[in-house]
């Protein structure tokens, strides 16, 4: 698929000095992959973005500045707020407090900034207490306000219909959506590697049966099936139970592509001389597979895995968007986007669509990184 990218990246630069050639000769496989990967600018960019996303996921409570579930009807559907970065020529960010009133004609809530008052905004300031990493009590947040409650004054991305702060919700949603991709792909990987490996290594009837199962699964439209399975889950399940149920449902159908890749590698490696040699010296099957074959295609599995994650993220977002995946009080990108379902509401408050930007960036970053890893792992594929 990414032959174009491969062509532009794979050829080791011709102007490499002789010393560097020596370096290549003794480099390990992983070093070679890393050197090639480094040259793929888009892939490196994608990786940096993903690291940032996972940092947010890990420290969501630090990046958020208020409780994402705290609702207040008096603050519903506020527009994203302007931050004034400079105060009288010096770098002292502040915001104006907002006052909500009702428009006497349309009865719509409107918010007017009180330009006489300034609330200073501080980075790494004190705010609501939380448990850092789940066990260290802390109250520092990336963004905080001085002399006022953040929940009453700071609205970086506006608020939703229930008056909950969208920025803080987005931080927690990132945690849910980015980890659901990881957990689900881990499950798919286990299924894919076992079934694909068995299929590719043993061949014969087992192979035929597994291949037919994969073909059948791939010719079924997945979203209706997911919807059916997700709707069949008991509605009184807790957030955590739903989370794992959804990951299992998504990975049950998502393993086929990984199995296909693993099988393909097994079949091509089985004919290599070193496998034959290992067989001749009497290595056990397990040793041949895990000691000799697996190390030479781990990189391909990593690439296929990376490329499988965006599809999972989109699946979860779609299901939750329909109201069949994660349900409130869970917070994920899809759950946030549920508010954007009503097109009239969206026209009045377009900021409800911001979580979509996060989805698109994450999916793009995964695609770029996956392409880069695949090209680096095997430029001749």
């Amino acid at each position, binding site marked *: *698929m*990414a*032959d*174009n990218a491969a062509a*532009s990246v794979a050829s080791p630069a011709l102007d490499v000095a002789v010393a560097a050639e020596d370096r290549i000769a003794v480099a390990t496989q992983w070093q070679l992959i890393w050197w090639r990967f480094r040259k793929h600018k888009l892939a490196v960019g994608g990786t940096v973005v993903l690291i940032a996303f996972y940092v947010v996921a890990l420290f969501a409570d630090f990046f958020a500045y208020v409780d994402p579930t705290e609702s207040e009807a008096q603050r519903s559907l506020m527009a994203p707020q302007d931050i004034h970065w400079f105060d009288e020529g010096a770098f002292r960010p502040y915001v104006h407090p907002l006052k909500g009133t009702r428009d006497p004609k349309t009865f719509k809530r409107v918010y007017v900034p009180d330009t006489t008052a300034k609330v200073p905004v501080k980075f790494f300031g004190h705010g609501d207490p939380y448990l850092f990493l789940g066990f260290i009590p802390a109250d520092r947040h990336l963004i905080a306000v001085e002399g006022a409650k953040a929940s009453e004054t700071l609205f970086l991305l506006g608020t939703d219909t229930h008056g909950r702060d969208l920025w803080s919700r987005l931080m927690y949603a990132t945690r849910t959506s980015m980890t659901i991709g990881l957990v689900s792909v881990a499950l798919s990987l286990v299924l894919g590697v076992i079934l694909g490996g068995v299929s590719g290594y043993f061949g014969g009837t087992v192979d035929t049966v597994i291949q*037919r199962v994969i*073909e*059948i699964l*791939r*010719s*079924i*439209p*997945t*979203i*209706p*099936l997911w*919807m*059916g*399975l997700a*709707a*069949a*889950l*008991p509605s009184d399940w807790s957030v955590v139970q739903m989370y794992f149920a959804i990951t299992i449902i998504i990975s049950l159908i998502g393993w086929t592509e990984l199995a296909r890749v693993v099988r393909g590698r097994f079949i091509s490696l089985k004919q290599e001389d070193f496998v034959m040699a290992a067989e001749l010296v009497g290595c056990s099957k397990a040793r041949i597979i895990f000691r000799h074959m697996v190390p030479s295609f781990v990189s391909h599995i990593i690439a296929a895995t990376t490329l499988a994650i*965006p599809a999972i993220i*989109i699946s979860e*977002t*779609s299901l939750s*968007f*329909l*109201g*069949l995946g994660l349900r409130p009080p869970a917070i994920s990108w899809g759950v946030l*986007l549920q508010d*954007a*379902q009503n*097109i*009239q509401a*969206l*026209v009045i408050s*377009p900021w409800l*669509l911001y979580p*979509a930007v996060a*989805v*698109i960036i994450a*999916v*793009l970053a995964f*695609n*770029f990184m996956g392409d880069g890893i695949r090209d680096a792992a095997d430029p001749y594929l």
Partner: protein
Amino acid sequence: MVAYIVRRLVLAVMTVWAISVLSFLIIHLPPGDYVTSYIASMSASGSAVSADEAQALREQLGLDKPIHVQYAKWMGLILQGNFGMAMEWGRPVADVIGDRLMLTMVISVAAIVFTWGLALPIGIYSAVKPYSIADYAFTLIGFIGLAIPGFLLALVVMYIGFAYFGANVGGLFSPDFAEAPWSPAKLWDLTKHLPIPAIVLGVAGTAQLIRIMRSNLLDELRKPYVMTARARGLSEYRTIMRYPVRVALNPFISTIGYLLPYVVSGSIIVSLVLSLPTVGPLLLKALIAQDMFLAGTIILLLGVMTVIGTFLSDLLLMWVDPRIRLGRDGR
């Protein structure tokens, strides 16, 4: 050739069977059945359902029998063309689904036509002029097309239509035609409404196909026979279209087998956003009302339609690819 058709046919039948079992499982997975949710909705509106009434309802619907008997009964009815009653609607399932299922397929096919119509020329262009500005632009658009889930694209299209043109771009018919019986005028109305859903649904697939076509054709163009053709003075157009494009087209066509389930799948959720009268909104409603009978039937029929479509595309592939026609299965 016969062996190929038989193999595909057997696979199609097995797929249909697998889909029927999965649909049936979905019908029976939830802890309650239709009667429990019926009781819940009745008591929510203030009227109670007695235990006797509930039992009678269960017997009437055959919900008191063991599960394999219910499956056999269900399959038997379906094979006779009787899809049972959509309980909430109080009408036969076939009535409720009929038109909507057809429209789902119409939209999906339109999306695939759009996908091919766009991916083919762009793919050829990108391969003939690789690393040109247009090639990079298409690659970028393709990447973004892949990254935006269909329903988000639908939302954005709706938003733009609403905010900047003040028009509702959703739906498949003008209000005048929505309930009208089929007529040439209604068909024309449908044709006018079709492009937006087709484009929204087709974008992701187009992005993928452009990449496949581009890399296939790039590989072909490097081969010596192309140089020979050029050396012999064939016009550039003939050099490219006559052989390399035709060779590169084969893997392209074989992707339709996976494209169709993908597009049908996407149409469900895009229909909800664009409020298209397909089975999508119906399926969601049925699932939320726990009318699993209707939902299961929709999933089954969608699956079967997809399998039929895939089978037809296999026949098409056979017609195009002589390797398969002559009995050497290239795949």
